């Protein structure tokens, strides 16, 4: 693996040179303060001083809603209009790990052409980060990234260490060879190591994901799930903000004049009531507690059993989002018999008083 040094002032000129003919996506700050990946029209929009975006980067490959087909009486025409040349800049390691999980699912387990096409036309440019009180990547083992990116930018004081992760990444560097310096000094290495050590100490919470599959099985009938179900607003947000959730629904959108229809695909969430409803109106998981169990079984048990790692990358989005504090941290802590500070727990005590 080759590593170069890039002066900070060269960053935007470099991005400009490589993003010609492609959509450059990067984190931007919304007026209300939170961040979001957006297509960049002006480099001043980019804000790298961010911890996490509201929606995960999977929205860039598979938007919340897009058309899969135009169906007429005679044929289906596949619609790949969501596929364009893209560069995503500024992805944190947890989000790149999440893309690898999406790859596992959509490229290896099932071949989803809509994902594969979008993914194959996208370059991944990662960026280093600093944890906040919700970050669980160290626990999830996703704080370090070794694959899944084309370039990775580690921020030092005045420069970046730029790690080349693929031959495509190498091609990018060659467009502006003058910007990149191969001469990495001992001092640079020292700075990087110190930064790594500092970052390691900055995590305030940890979860033992290894124990989770057993605890999920052992506590499958635990009253905990009733408590969670009682408070859950069934808003689907935990799924929508999760970078590894991949469920979707399909709908016909008929045209007004032409005898044709769009077949559209939109994100679905197992925590929503309609998710487990089948033809005839039967619902397998009408109770919110059952739906939450499904969600956490997927995140904490099934995936670990199959792939040896959790389907949680510790990005902290569910922790930041759920209004009633049902999230990977409080659920895992609770499974582990730790005390939790969560609305759902206070609510359970309130209503059973």
């Amino acid at each position: 693996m080759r590593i170069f040094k890039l002066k900070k002032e060269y960053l935007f000129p470099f991005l400009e040179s490589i993003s010609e003919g492609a959509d450059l996506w990067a984190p931007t700050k919304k007026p209300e303060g939170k961040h979001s990946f957006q297509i960049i029209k002006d480099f001043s929009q980019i804000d790298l001083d961010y911890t996490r975006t509201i929606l995960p980067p999977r929205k860039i490959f598979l938007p919340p809603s897009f058309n899969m087909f135009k169906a007429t009486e005679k044929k289906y025409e596949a619609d790949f209009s969501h596929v364009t040349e893209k560069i995503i800049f500024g992805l944190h390691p947890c989000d790149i790990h999440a893309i690898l999980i999406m790859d596992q699912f959509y490229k290896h387990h099932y071949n989803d052409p809509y994902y594969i096409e979008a993914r194959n036309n996208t370059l991944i440019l990662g960026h280093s980060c600093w944890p906040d009180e919700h970050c669980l990547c160290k626990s999830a083992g996703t704080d370090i990234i070794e694959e899944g990116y084309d370039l990775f930018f580690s921020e030092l004081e005045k420069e970046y260490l730029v790690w080349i992760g693929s031959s495509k990444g190498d091609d990018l560097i060659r467009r502006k060879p003058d910007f990149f310096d191969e001469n990495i000094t001992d001092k640079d290495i020292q700075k990087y190591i110190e930064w790594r050590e500092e970052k390691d100490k900055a995590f305030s919470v940890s979860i033992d994901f290894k124990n989770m599959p057993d605890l999920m099985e052992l506590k499958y009938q635990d009253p905990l799930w009733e408590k969670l179900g009682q408070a859950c607003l069934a808003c689907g947000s935990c799924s929508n903000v999760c970078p590894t959730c991949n469920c979707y629904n399909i709908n016909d959108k008929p045209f007004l004049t032409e005898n044709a229809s769009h077949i559209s695909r939109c994100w679905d969430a197992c925590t929503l009531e309609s998710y487990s409803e089948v033809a005839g109106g039967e619902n397998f998981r009408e109770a919110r507690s059952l739906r939450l169990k499904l969600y956490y079984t997927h995140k904490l048990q099934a995936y670990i059993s199959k792939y040896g790692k959790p389907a949680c990358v510790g990005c902290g989005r569910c922790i930041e989002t759920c209004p009633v504090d049902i999230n990977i941290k409080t659920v895992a802590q609770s499974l582990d018999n730790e005390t939790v500070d969560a609305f759902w727990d206070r609510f359970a005590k309130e209503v059973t008083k």
Partner: protein
Amino acid sequence: MKNDKLKIGFYELTGCAGDCLLVTDCEMELIDIFNAVDIQSFAMVMSNNTDGELDLALVEGSVTTEKEIEELKDIRKRAKAVVAFGTCAVLGGVQARFIDPKEWEKNLKIVYGNTEFTHTKPVQSKPIDAFIDVDFYLPGCPVSKEQFLNFFTRILKGNPPEHYPNPVCVTCKYNENDCLLKKGELCLGPLTADGCGSICPNHNIPCNGCWGPVEGANVTSEFYLLKEKGFSVDEIKKKMANFSGTKITDYFQQLDKEPK
């Protein structure tokens, strides 16, 4: 020539006429809509309306006079399917916020004094399903263009209408809004049926519940959550009742059963 187009009627009871107006707001689709079906009645845009048999009647507004009850029953008799078109028809609308009949009578008197109305007697605002069977509900204050067009084209193509079972939060997250409830605002997003495109939170304004309650809304939990955030019981109940009319009573009763 045999006319096999669907016979459709748009009707307005008491409301702001916003749902019918919204149909005219489909400017680019309006001529296609009129050509696709045989519109028998649409008082806002046509003068040659007829009162015959219908395949589909879209009824906007709530029932607030005895005459409207008669009109509504007549529409039901003539139409194979009736759609409650907009929040007023679905839930009674903002004018159904007096849950207690005595409250309503008192306020009627404040507005109109002792006038004995000669044309028709007023009744407390009620959704249309208080008087007739309704085949489909299309809430919204007013209904959304997308939901109306989707409903209309599906019916036109012989498909069952699509249901919108999710709360506003789903679209709100798609739109990457910062959660206003989490920020401590009195947002009714999790309790409210989706369809508006989370338009208020998109503008940093908390959801006021104008689509009415979503199926399976966890009112109790949100109620306690809002209380914990410092809102008074009165404030929360009032805001929840603004659009959901007498139907919110069921929820309140459910709440009152909960221990203190």
